[in-house]
């Protein structure tokens, strides 16, 4: 690493102070990187980005007020060259796709941060994209699966909150028959045996949140 090059300027976005501290401690040990700002939600992230124009942004997905995906969409809309790395606990393929479509250049799991973070920051700064093999495998596994329509996602979310068909029908102002039709499609698309299984798959693939 040549020392005459300016360090990579980094913005760290996460709502958990301990995680931000950990990232700061790790980055402080490496002279080719410098942490220029921190943010604890999507809104702050947009502000800090405008102010500091970091080279690389580390972005958590689930945050209060504004989540990471919305923040990325806003930032990339304003600064198409923004280089954002997603840091998250979730591996679900749907979640990954959502993040990549929103403009993420890399998708890192928090469990692998300590080994992969520095390398990923350098690669993304150099203009590359990075998807870890674990995440790529997840993406590949479901690449040919039918995607759920927004209505089906809504139905799945209501199932996950413990609603019966009748209650789902009332809440969405549709007939119970239609609900049953949606559920049948959901089960087929997710390759699920039953409603509980569908919810488990939905959570795992990041179609619905906890």
């Amino acid at each position, binding site marked *: 690493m040549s020392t005459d090059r300016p360090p990579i300027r980094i913005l760290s976005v996460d709502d*958990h102070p301990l995680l931000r501290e*950990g990232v700061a401690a*790790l980055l402080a040990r490496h002279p080719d990187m410098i942490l220029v700002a921190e943010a604890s939600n999507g809104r702050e992230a947009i502000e800090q980005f405008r102010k500091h124009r970091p080279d690389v942004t580390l972005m958590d997905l689930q945050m209060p007020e504004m989540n990471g995906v919305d923040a990325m969409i806003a930032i990339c809309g304003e600064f198409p060259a923004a280089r954002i790395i997603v840091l998250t606990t979730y591996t679900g393929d749907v979640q990954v796709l959502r993040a990549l479509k929103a403009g993420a250049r890399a998708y890192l799991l928090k469990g692998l941060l*300590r080994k992969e973070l520095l390398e990923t920051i350098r690669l993304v700064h150099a203009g590359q994209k990075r998807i870890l093999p674990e995440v790529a495998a997840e993406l590949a596994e479901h690449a040919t699966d039918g995607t759920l329509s927004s209505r089906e996602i809504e139905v799945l979310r209501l199932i996950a909150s*413990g*609603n019966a068909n009748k209650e789902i029908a009332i809440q969405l102002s549709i007939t119970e028959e239609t609900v049953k039709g949606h559920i049948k499609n959901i089960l087929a698309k997710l390759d699920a*045996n039953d409603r509980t299984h569908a919810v488990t798959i939905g*959570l795992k693939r990041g179609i619905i949140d*906890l």
Partner: protein
Amino acid sequence: MNRIDDRHSSPDRGHMPAFWHAARQFVFGVAGLAVITVAALRLNLQPGATSLLYLIVVVFVSLRGAFVSSIGVSLIAVVGLNFFFIPRFSSTGDRNPLDIVATVAFLTTAGVITAMVARLRKLTEAQLSLRFEERLSERTRIARELHDTLLQSFQGLMLHFQTVNDLLPPGEAKETLEKALDRADQAIVEGREAIQNLRSSTTSTNGLSEALTSLGEELAGARDSRADSATFRVSMEGTPRELHPILRDDICRIAGEALRNAFRHAHANSIEAEITYGFHILRLRIRDDGKGIDPKLLQAGRDGHWGLPGMRERAQEIGARLDIWSEAGAGTEVELSIPSSIAYTTSAAKIESWQERSGG
């Protein structure tokens, strides 16, 4: 296996609509009154003693959960007392004004008892349903809290440790720390999975037969390698009703234990699970044709063996009844019955309102 087959083919009383249940209890009650009347005439009982016996019939009918029938039976009892018994004992044939007082007293007592039984029943159900709700919200809260705070903090701490690791010169200390960190990574992954399981156990209702099917298939799959795997079948009677997720979870755990016993210890050829969504009870039977459980063990329920004490405890906690029949060489049948009032009323509508309140 005759005994079990008989039970299986006996007409099921589970699907009786409410009207027939009431009518049946009414007929039982009237029959009870008739028997007492005959006995009273034979024994020459006083009207007072007879009326007490009548009251017992009323209490019995109301205990069976048929309150309309219980009121009907008490009316008939009053008519019988006034127009049959009391005239027989009045020497003059004149009507004593006290008879009216006695009649009112009888009806009041019958009414109060019926109302008390009904109220007690409601209270017990409300308490159980509250306990389900508490457990559900507690479980959800624990899962969320663990995920949002503990897990994230650990991940932050891991970065700190990694920084320390980077500071260390190559050598034994660095290697040891590196190994410890790898183990910690694994522990975090396991923790996350456990939290996710905790959370998904609270998410959806129903699906009892699906849950049992997949559980049974899993167990059957685990035995496949030994080539003597038992056949497994799940059957369902009645229209499936929504169950409270906590209740379903507990039922699945009890059933899981019974199925594990059947698959692992019974050396059975066939294992069956039968779910009946009945009018009175939700019933689950798990049957195998294996070697049976030693009756001594069944009675003593030796600690930790076959998980019997655990199953009993769990059943008691959800207001269910657990019966186990077994004979050496004749297989085992485990029956879990939950009164419909507990099984069905604490379901989705309440969960939904709870979730709206808690913003979940």
